[in-house]
């Protein structure tokens, strides 16, 4: 309220420096500098602004710093800095403490009232308020952000138009391709490519491949379908994909941080896509942006996908039955290049021999791969001209996801199980602040998809940490459930608060009433007061009951009302109180007053 200057100057500098330091670190990380540079710069700037400008009132300096911090946060929060959540929380807490401290110091500059109680110790009060406010703010953010996102966020944003440079520098995992060369090492960095707002983690699938030649994956069916506009666009259901027809819906909103992507990522299998782009779909259900990159997604572009997948359990997959793939498709997904050495098939048959069904066979193959191969992105590539899977299984036994997934697909096919290779991204890390999945270049992944009759394509990957086939129901985060129940929780909180308030009011009223009616005199006084209020002559606080009864007698023109005061005085101050007959007489008088409507 008043200006905080003098002794408060030094203490104010601490939270202000922390807040601005956090904003500085956020900005530095976003611009590619070390966080410490921004942290130090922001903190020093805040300290100088507060401590080195004695002519400027501290309150004014601190408010300026808060404004600067707020603008900085708005400017740099959308970035993809690695410590964004931590820095945002730090900024929020430090700003909160700054405001609390500023208010407290303002109060301290006011002159104490004569005889007033001293204020609670500053440190204690600031700590107490800060903790309470931090809890309230955290709960509000936890409930409010999903609510705002669900109700206010736009599911489609055009974003920045990608430049040629963006297209050239984009990793292969963000570009549509007709083939996947297994002898090329992928680029895996920490750069964020996109974020996904989804209830549960899943593979963010980009493409699938069905034809394996021993070195690279290709697509057999090269047909492309234009998806009509406007948004939302319904994707063609891939042939014989039961999951895409009757599975559970999963809505995802993708926001690109990368400058370019012409792939439309989606959890298997995309059904409805909301976007402002022209799209095309392949026969396998994968979708990409039409226009050879000119129409691609740029930084800030947002689209929303609703996918469907049958949530299957292990027993579902073991007992899977129903329509299998048509013969021509079945042959396609079971085909193994003739050049692939026979020992691959023998190995697969040996590993799966004990298994009785398709699911157990895949699990057996996964188990063998897990036990006998090693994951490494630095693994040597296969020698030129050599079958990559054979080399991986019988020579190097070290490779990255593409070798492992390809081996699983080829081995599955070798034992007659329809399989294909899928590429895309693993879910990434969930941002604790926003609940979104942050997906980086290093999350690019390849995995196997196995066909189950009556269920459809199911993902399998021994290296993945996502719920795979047979793991329906695993979620791993409280945020989605919190988001789902946010409105209910808010309603319950409001209801509880309202009930508590009503209870307090009722208890107070009952207590007052009981206190008033504890004695005959109190009850009679209360009745007299009520009669007086009805005629618009409430008792003044300085008025005795006798005086009040006299006044009412005059006002009503009924002299007997004055005796009520006399008897009440007698009851209160007389040697033995009022007699029974006097009480009865008073009761009659008061009752007669109460009975009359529209007194006087």
């Amino acid at each position, binding site marked *: *309220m008043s200006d905080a200057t003098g002794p408060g100057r030094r203490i104010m500098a601490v939270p202000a420096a922390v807040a601005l330091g956090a904003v500085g670190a956020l900005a530095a990380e976003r611009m590619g500098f070390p966080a410490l540079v921004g942290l130090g710069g922001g903190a020093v700037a805040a300290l100088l602004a507060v401590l080195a400008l004695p002519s400027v009132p501290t309150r004014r300096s601190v*408010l300026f710093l*808060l*404004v600067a911090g*707020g603008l900085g*946060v*708005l400017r740099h*929060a*959308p970035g993809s800095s690695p410590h*964004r*959540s931590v820095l*945002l929380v730090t900024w*929020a807490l430090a700003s*909160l403490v700054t*405001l*609390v401290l*500023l*208010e407290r110091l*303002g*109060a*301290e500059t*006011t*002159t*104490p*009232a*004569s*005889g*007033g*109680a001293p*204020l*609670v110790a500053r440190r204690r009060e600031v700590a107490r*308020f800060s903790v309470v*406010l931090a809890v*309230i*703010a955290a709960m*509000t*953010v936890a409930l*409010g*952000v999903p609510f*705002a*996102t669900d109700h*206010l*966020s*736009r*599911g489609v*944003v055009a974003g920045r138009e990608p430049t040629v440079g963006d297209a050239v520098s984009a990793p292969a995992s963000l570009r549509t391709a007709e083939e996947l060369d297994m002898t090329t090492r992928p680029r895996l960095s920490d750069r964020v490519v996109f*974020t996904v*707002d989804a209830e549960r983690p899943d593979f963010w699938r980009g493409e699938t491949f069905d034809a394996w030649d021993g070195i690279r994956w290709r697509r057999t069916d090269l047909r492309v379908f234009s998806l009509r506009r406007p948004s939302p666009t319904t994707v063609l259901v891939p042939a014989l994909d039961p999951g895409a027809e009757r599975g559970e819906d999963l809505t995802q*909103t993708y*926001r690109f941080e990368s400058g370019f992507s012409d792939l439309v990522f989606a959890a298997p299998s995309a059904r409805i896509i909301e976007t402002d782009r022209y799209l095309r779909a392949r026969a396998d259900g994968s979708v990409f942006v039409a226009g050879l990159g000119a129409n691609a997604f740029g930084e*800030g572009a*947002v689209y929303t996908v609703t996918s469907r997948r049958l949530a299957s359990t292990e027993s579902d997959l073991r007992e899977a039955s129903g329509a299998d793939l048509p013969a021509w498709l079945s042959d396609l997904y079971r085909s193994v290049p003739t050049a692939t050495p026979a020992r691959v098939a023998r190995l697969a048959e040996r590993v799966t021999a004990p298994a009785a069904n398709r699911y157990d066979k895949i699990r057996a193959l996964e188990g063998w791969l897990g036990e006998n191969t090693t994951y490494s992105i630095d693994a040597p590539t296969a020698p030129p001209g050599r079958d990559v899977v054979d080399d991986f299984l019988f020579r190097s036994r070290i490779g990255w996801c593409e070798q492992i997934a390809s081996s699983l697909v080829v081995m599955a096919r070798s034992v007659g199980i329809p399989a294909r290779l899928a590429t895309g991204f693993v879910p990434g890390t969930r*941002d604790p*602040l*926003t*609940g*979104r999945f942050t997906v980086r270049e290093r999350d690019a992944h390849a995995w196997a998809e196995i066909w189950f009759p009556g269920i459809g394509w199911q993902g399998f990957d021994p290296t993945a940490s996502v719920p795979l086939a047979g793991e329906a129901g695993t979620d791993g985060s409280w945020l989605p459930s919190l988001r789902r129940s946010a409105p209910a929780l808010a309603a319950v909180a409001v209801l509880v608060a309202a009930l508590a308030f009503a209870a307090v009011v009722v208890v107070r009223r009952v207590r007052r009433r009981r206190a008033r009616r504890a004695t005959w005199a109190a009850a009679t006084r209360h009745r007299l007061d009520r009669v007086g209020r009805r005629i618009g002559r409430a008792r*003044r*606080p*300085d008025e005795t009951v006798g005086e009040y009864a006299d006044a009412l007698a005059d006002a009503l023109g009924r002299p007997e009302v004055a005796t009520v005061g006399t008897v009440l005085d007698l009851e209160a101050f007389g040697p033995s109180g009022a007699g029974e007959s006097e009480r009865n007489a008073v009761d009659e008088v008061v009752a007669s007053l109460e009975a009359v409507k529209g007194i006087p």
Partner: protein
Amino acid sequence: MSRRAVRRRASATGPGEFTVPAVLCFALAVYGIAGGAAAGEDATTAVGVFALACFVVGVWWPIAALAFVRVSVTAPPDASVGSVVPLRVTLVGRGRVEIRSADASDPWRRTALPATVTIGHRPAARGVVDTVRIQLRTSVPLGVFIRIRTYSVALPRPMYVAPRTEVRSVRSGRAPEERDRRRSRGSGIGEGDAVRSVREYVAGDPARLVHWPTSARRGGLHVREHEPPPTVGIAVVADLSGGRPERAAVDAMSVGVAALAAGDRVWIGTHESGGPASGEVTDRRELGRRLARARSGAPPPPPAGWTVHRAGGEA
């Protein structure tokens, strides 16, 4: 009064006022939520929701804090218009507040709760006051919103606010020099015309009081002792039915106070809620109470033999 001071006093009459941090929080909330939603950027939305939480809590908290503060006040029974009178204010509640009398331009004073504090109150008008207005304000915990609440608190006993007093000289029924002489001499000779007795002359007795027949008969100088004259004083007739009733009250109060200070008896006639009221007052407090109760209406006629001072009446 400066323009800033006028603005500040005017704002204090409202339910409260927003501060610069309020503007900051609100702007951050609007921009964060709207911008975050538009860009599909949840981190920005989170910043906006956080700012909104600060804004809402910052407004709600002071309002809730003052809603649960109970105020009771005791005041001295007598006061004068324009003079500061101490009010003893008991505050029951939690937290800390700033307090001042709403009827005065007193500065704010801070205290933690519960507390019993003394604040200055400067009555602005004459009358019998049974309620006073107290203002509390607080902006805890964020300083986003300064909640100002005005309490009309009933006093357990009324406070009589007398008119302000101006310096006056009064003329009673006697000449001033005679009155002075009477006050200073104290010789017991008396001032009236009736002779009570004679006594021997003592040095200093005026020669005009020598009673020659007795002096001749007894062979020495004797002087007369007179009965004192009938005691009279000032009858102040306060008629507040004229065009400037408060001016009349001030006039009556000033004359009465001056007369009492001069040692004169003072009779005052006013019109109260029950009709004309009159009587002699013996001290300033009693005079003030009578004038505090006075209302517009015809006062009673003054008693015979008193010097009459009419205050107010027809303009």
